[in-house]
Every structure is written in C-alpha cells, then in structure tokens.
C-alpha cells in the first residue's frame, strides 16, 4: 500500500519531520516494495493554508495513510475528507517507522493534535 511519511530529507535513511504542512519532504513509500519517491514540499513558505495545500497533495498522490509528528485542524480535515488514514506522534528513522507501521504498531488518530497556525489577515 502507498503511504506518506513527512521527512527531513530525501530518502528512507532520514528521520520523520514532526511537522506536516511545512515539513521538508513528503516521502511516498510503497510498503511492499519499499520504493520511495521524495517530493520537496512546495508549501513551506506559503502565507496561509499550508496544511490545506499539503493535505491535498496526499490524495493527488493516491496515498492511503499519512504518518507524521503533529497535524493541525485544517490539514486534518482536508485529508480525513478523502478517507485517508492519519497517524500522529510518529518519530524516528523513516525505515524503522515503515516497519512498525507494517506490523500494525500504530493507531490512527481521530483528531488533530495541534491548533491552527493562523496568519494575520491585515
């Protein structure tokens, strides 16, 4: 199955990036073959709505589960609306995380775990 892990660098040897919307890279990983595609996050510098835009990239890449450290309400809502599973509190080397995921060691999250990072309107 295809999953996405937020990462600090471009391959399986790196660690999970604790942020979702403004993480460094999205690693799109096939859990069977362990093939890994690294997408540099284009939303790091955006003014507002980074979580929403990053969330939309998940369905665009046909991901079935997202693994990250923390996620705010906008990203959560965007991803959950596409029936993609969300796993929060994930940390450590990406290779190990994928293994633990395959062994069913993680529970899906029912709600976001951080508040919104809101940009002032003025």
């Amino acid at each position, binding site marked *: 199955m295809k999953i996405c892990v937020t990462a600090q660098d471009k391959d399986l040897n790196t660690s999970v990036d604790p942020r979702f919307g403004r993480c460094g890279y999205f690693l799109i990983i096939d859990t069977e073959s362990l093939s890994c595609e690294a997408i540099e996050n284009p939303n790091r510098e955006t*003014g507002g709505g980074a979580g929403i835009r990053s969330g939309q990239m998940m*369905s665009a890449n046909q991901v079935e589960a997202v693994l990250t450290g923390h996620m705010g309400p906008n990203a959560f809502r965007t991803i959950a609306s*596409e029936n993609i599973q969300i796993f929060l509190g994930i940390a450590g080397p990406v290779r190990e995380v994928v293994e633990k995921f395959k062994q069913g060691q993680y529970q899906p999250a029912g709600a976001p775990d951080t508040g919104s990072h809101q940009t002032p309107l003025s």
Partner: protein
Amino acid sequence: MIISVASGKGGTGKTTIATSLALSLDRELQFIDCDVEEPNAHIFLKPEINASETVGLPVPRIDPGRCVLCGHCQEVCAYNAIAVTSLQVLTFPELCHSCGACALLCPQQAIEEIPREIGTLETGALRTFSGRAIRFVHGRLNPKEVATPHLIRQVKARIEPDSLVIMDAPPGTTCPVVQTIKDSHFCILVTEPTPFGFHDLKLIIELLKQIRIPHGVVINRCDIGDRQVESFCEEQQIPVLMRIPFSLDIARMYSRGVALIEADRQYRRKFQEMFEIIEPRALQPDSLQ
C-alpha cells in the same frame, strides 16, 4: 472635525488623553473607540449602551446541488480558503479574506456569500459635568478573530459628519491604526520619554507625514525618562501640546476607572487649551478631497 488620538508604542496614555479631552471640552461631540481588539474607553466614560449589533464578514457557502467539483473556486482563491477534494468542496472561513472572487467566478453559480460573525458594535451616550451629550460608539472584536480593520470600518461608518469627533485609536502603526486615523483632520500622538516610546513615535510620525495629517505630541510621564522626544519635536517643529508629569495618584485613579480630569480637576483647563492649539492647525474638512 475629526481628532484622532494615536501613539506608536502601546500603553502611553491614548485612552487617558482621548477620554479626558472629550470630557473637558464640555460640548456636544461624538466619541469613537476604534481599538476594537481591546476597547477600554467605556471604562472611563461610562456610557449608557442603548444598542448592540453583531458585525459579520461574508464567507462562501457552496450549494452541493449545483457544484460540479470543477475546482475553479480553489484556483481563484488567493488565500487557500477553499479546497476541492474528490468528493466535496471544503471551505476554511478563518482563512477567507472576503474578496468575493469565488462566488463571482463560479461557472455554476453554486456559491453564495453568507455572514460570519466577527464582533459586535455598540452605541450609547453619556453627559458631561454640565449636561452636554456625548454620543458613544465602540466595536469589540471576538477572540481569535483577525479582521480588525473591517470592524473598525464598520465602527467609523457611524461617524456623524459635521460633528466634532474624538477617536481613540489602537496602539501601533499597522493596518488597524491606518484604518482608524486615515481621514482625521488632526492626530494627537501620546508618547512617553523613553527609548521605546521615542522609537515608535518616530514611526507613527513618519506615517502621518506620508498621509499628510497635521499632528502634535503629548508627553505623558514627562518627568521620568530622557530628553530625546523633546529634542526631536523641537528639531522637527512638531508642537508639544501637553506635558503630564508622572503621578501615582493619577495611576491609582486610572486603575479604578476614573478619568484623568476627574482625578485632577486642574487638567480640565489644560485640555481646553490643548484644543485651542489644535483647532487652527486641523485640516479644513473640505480640503481632504
């Protein structure tokens, strides 16, 4: 004539000056508290509030019956406030800037604009010591809301043209302040003689010069601090309208909601004199066109 009271640095005494000026002039006037994030003039003026209404901002509502998930609304939104997923359209009202583009440009006309409450506007009245009516308006932004300038615009829409208007501005030098003071005939700047006070005073003076509003300075707590503000005003030929020495009594009375001129009646004459300096320097109303 519209006289606004601003500062640059917060906490210098804008509300102190604005409320005491209104109370000292002993004439019919309108008092507008534009510090909608934290209105406090009512604490000192104690108006009787007679009307209250909610203020809203338009945000999109999508009609799922007409929507075909074409994604055009998402494309035109500059603020990421609309996300078109494979099954539905999600709107994020807190990110919406109410520009109206999505509703205007939806090919299916599936979007209508509905109000989202951001705050309240209250009006009321009080009387001066000799019985003159002061009409009062203020706005109060709801917690977590950020559309301060919009609410300020609604508050200012209640200004009665041809009245004498005293406006208490928010602190700082950014959009809420500009929105408040931009069509004043005169702006009183309240500062304190400290490095922070001086630094932020220079910022607001820079702003006022750009938008060409006559201004003068009130130095609050004038006897504790340094001489940088005085020297600067002398160099730049900016009138110093009043100097208020620090007084623990005034501070104590302030903390009990007592206006300066009620704590110390001698200040009444000083405020009247300040108005006499301001009046001839203020812009003539028709010269603002």
